[in-house]
């Protein structure tokens, strides 16, 4: 065949595939959901960054707000305080969680399921609640005040105890996962080589979970540094970055400075996020190796020690939970211990009354329903769509971003963006809609990752087969993808519901008198000194979240039973 000179020299343009009707529809949807992320995340963040370089009159001032910030010792001091809280909490939580996770995976302690359930309780509570319990336990009139040997619970001690309580389940989940993927064959080999238990621990166990530990450390650090609930309730005069933002905005109406502190708070959170992503990739590589699950052998003494340890941790958690419930149920704890429901008469207090509780349920339901649809469908389009490579890449980035944005920062960014008079979207300001929008975005990342993981586990050829059979993509999506991913979809909706119930940080800047939320009511009642009602409302949130969790459990069991005919692994 003759080769024409041009075909040798000219760079050839690759063929462009003709897009099918499905491709067009899928592109339209990914653009729509992408637009949602741009409006609900990228633009508000941009508004916040730009606010930090303007003065209150709207004149561009460059970095002078930052200079002012760093010239104000009281503010700069908070950086140090936040780092202090973050580091100490990380060390304590990761240590406590590691030993507990070790017991869960390497011992045959009795009552494991009960202890596992108890240690997940903090996830179901607003982070304000442990602080309230600590006031009753160790405060001026605390029942076990003596345990602090004269130290004041208001301040770093109270914050750290609260943060350890609040971050423990998160660390535990990560470390248990890391420990359970350990390969039994490694242990058998080490034992065969006559390595002692201590040597095995340091040469096999620890290296095997190092990525899990690093990941847990960064997650805990980020949560502790960005949390607003605990320092607000029990921080006293100990200022941290999160409370500074709140004070600058709500107290002093100094929005520019609020923006500056937000940017400062973004740095550790973003840094932790990127390190975590890096480490996660390595962890995944470890996971993909075909490992044999480890079955711990009974060892009476070790099992007992681990159980005693689990009991101690459980007492800590149940103590805090129980304290709140007691305080809520007595007339005036600890002086008048007669039983009363007066603390539940929320309508008599500031904070929105019972309405705020029902608002919360409404908001959490919307967030769960719409959030699950948006997140799952978005992840599906990113995974299965064709073309628009750049846009899908950007979408993926935007989906990961919320993990690095603390709730308070997101809330403040919303004020700047949605409250701007020039923005036609400002009709949303102070509505239920904006609470739902912000909550979905706030918790987008974990939900998105759950969806992506489930979608990646499906056979990548389903869509190819469906296309060869000339079936529209939505038919396969509804008839195959959704049913196969139902467990993940349920997980996502429960995750969104529970977090929407308990969160306070983003929504604290966004509620209106008509849309007060239960978690915000806890904050405001505590602020007003109505601590027992605050505890009562906090427990309402807990019971609701716990009830939904139980419902989820039963539902999952039901679905499992109904679908086990086809969910059992292939019988090859």
């Amino acid at each position, binding site marked *: 065949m003759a080769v024409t000179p041009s075909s040798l020299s000219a760079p050839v343009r690759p063929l462009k595939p003709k897009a099918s009707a499905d491709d067009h529809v899928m592109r339209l949807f990914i653009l729509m959901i992408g637009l949602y992320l741009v409006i609900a995340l990228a633009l508000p963040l941009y508004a916040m960054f730009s606010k930090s370089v303007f003065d209150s009159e709207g004149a561009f001032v460059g970095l002078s707000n930052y200079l002012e910030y760093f010239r104000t010792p009281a503010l700069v001091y908070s950086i140090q305080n936040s780092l202090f809280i973050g580091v100490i909490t990380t060390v304590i939580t990761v240590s406590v969680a590691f030993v507990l996770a070790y017991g869960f995976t390497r011992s045959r302690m009795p009552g494991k399921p009960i202890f596992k359930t108890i240690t997940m309780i903090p996830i179901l509570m607003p982070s304000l609640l442990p602080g309230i319990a600590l006031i009753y336990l160790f405060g001026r009139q605390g029942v076990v005040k003596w345990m602090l040997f004269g130290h004041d619970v208001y301040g770093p001690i109270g914050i750290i105890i609260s943060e350890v309580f609040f971050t423990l389940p998160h660390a535990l989940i990560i470390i248990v996962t890391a420990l359970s993927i350990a390969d039994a064959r490694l242990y058998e080999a080490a034992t065969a080589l006559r390595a002692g238990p201590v040597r095995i621990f340091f040469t096999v166990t620890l290296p095997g979970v190092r990525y899990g530990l690093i990941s847990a450390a960064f997650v805990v650090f980020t949560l502790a540094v960005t949390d607003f609930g605990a320092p607000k309730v029990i921080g006293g005069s100990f200022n941290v970055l999160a409370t500074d933002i709140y004070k600058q905005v709500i107290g002093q109406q100094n929005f520019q400075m609020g923006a500056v502190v937000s940017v400062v708070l973004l740095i550790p959170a973003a840094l932790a996020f990127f390190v975590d992503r890096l480490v996660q990739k390595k962890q995944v590589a470890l996971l993909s190796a075909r490992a044999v699950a480890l079955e711990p052998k009974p060892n009476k003494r070790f099992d007992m020690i681990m159980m005693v340890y689990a009991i101690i941790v459980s007492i800590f958690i149940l103590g805090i939970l129980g304290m709140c419930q007691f305080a809520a149920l007595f007339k005036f704890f600890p002086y008048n211990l007669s039983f009363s429901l007066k603390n539940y008469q929320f309508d008599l207090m500031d904070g929105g009354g019972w309405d705020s509780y029902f608002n919360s349920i409404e908001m959490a339901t919307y967030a769960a329903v719409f959030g699950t649809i948006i997140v799952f469908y978005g992840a599906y389009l990113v995974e299965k769509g064709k073309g628009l490579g750049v846009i899908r890449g950007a979408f993926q980035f935007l989906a990961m971003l919320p993990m690095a944005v603390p709730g308070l920062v997101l809330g403040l960014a919303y004020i700047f963006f949605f409250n701007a008079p020039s923005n036609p979207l400002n009709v949303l300001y102070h509505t239920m809609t904006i609470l739902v929008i912000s909550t979905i975005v706030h918790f987008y990342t974990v939900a998105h990752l759950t969806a992506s993981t489930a979608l990646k586990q499906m056979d990548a050829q389903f869509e190819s087969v469906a296309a060869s059979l000339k079936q529209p993509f939505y038919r396969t999506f509804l008839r195959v993808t959704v049913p*196969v991913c139902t467990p993940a979809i349920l997980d996502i909706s429960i995750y969104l519901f529970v977090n929407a119930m308990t969160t306070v940080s983003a929504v604290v800047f966004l509620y209106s008198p008509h849309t007060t939320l239960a978690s915000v009511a806890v904050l405001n009642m505590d602020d007003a000194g109505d601590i027992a009602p605050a505890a009562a409302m906090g427990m309402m949130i807990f019971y609701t979240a716990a009830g939904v969790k139980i419902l989820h459990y039963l539902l999952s069991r039901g679905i499992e039973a109904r679908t086990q005919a086809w969910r059992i692994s292939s019988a090859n």
Partner: protein
Amino acid sequence: MASVFLKIDSLTKNFGSFTALRDISLEVFEGEFVCFLGPSGCGKTTLLRAIAGLDIQTQGRVEQAGQDISVLPPSERDFGIVFQSYALFPNLSVNKNVAYGLESRRSKREEVDQRVSELLALVDLADQGKKYPSQLSGGQQQRVALARALATSPGLLLLDEPLSALDAKVRAHLRQEIKRLQKRLAVTTIMVTHDQEEALTMADRIVVMNHGVIEQIGTPEQIYATPASAFVAEFIGTMNFVSALATGSGTFTHAGGSLDVSADGLKESGQVRLAIRPEDIYLSQGTDTPRLNQVVGEVTAAEYLGAFVRISLAPEGWESTLQVDASTDRAAALGIKVGAPAYVELPPEKILVYPEAV
């Protein structure tokens, strides 16, 4: 000869700077069974996906039934496909899987049911329709996938390593099954495989690929008897190789002596590789007067494979051992045993000559 059904012209596929397929051209005739054969990573799947439109080529043209389909999406092409994983929908029963492509707003329920039972009978699974895929064996799943792909009576059937996830016995059985089905339906079929035995037993024609190019296209007999390149010769069946130097007029010298070759139109010169199959080597009685291309060597191994023995011979000076197949009877008659010498003859007309790889 039947008419050309699928025509691929100068197809190239790049992944970034990596060229997975380079200038592929081939034709598939109506009703033909063609195998893409080659080592793992040579680009077979990539070529199949380009034909299906699942991942279209960077350059080049694909024509099916006279129509240019080069850039069409899969949904606008006419093919059925079976993947190595089968990709059966786990939550749908076998019946629903097979019916998946048949159900549309216009189709009648009874007609669909009718067609599904017809197809399941065709693949010998008439009574399995209510089960879920995970309740079937691997071989059964494979046949469900086949029935699903054939349900819409596609003009082209594409199979990507459809048998490689199965154990040897099931595989051998399904080979015949698929072949029988293909002949009966006369559907033009392309199957990807890295298993030469599979290709040799099933294909009407084989496309041997290596490193993104086609090495040879031909019937199994052509590919086996006259491999077009040393790669094909080595990849298909067993082949003895000897590096040698052409001295002209059909004689080649090598480390252990010289060999005469009578290949017609011999055009290789300089450094070459001579090749001969074990079954083409003649096990002979030892004589003192050397015959043409006679080689003597010590037997280093003798492997009894039922009707024949594979003898490994280490002739003095040769760079590697020579594999020789002889009938069990003959080997016994000639007293072949390990450690003893044996005489063989390499018929000049059976020796193939390939240029030395550079």
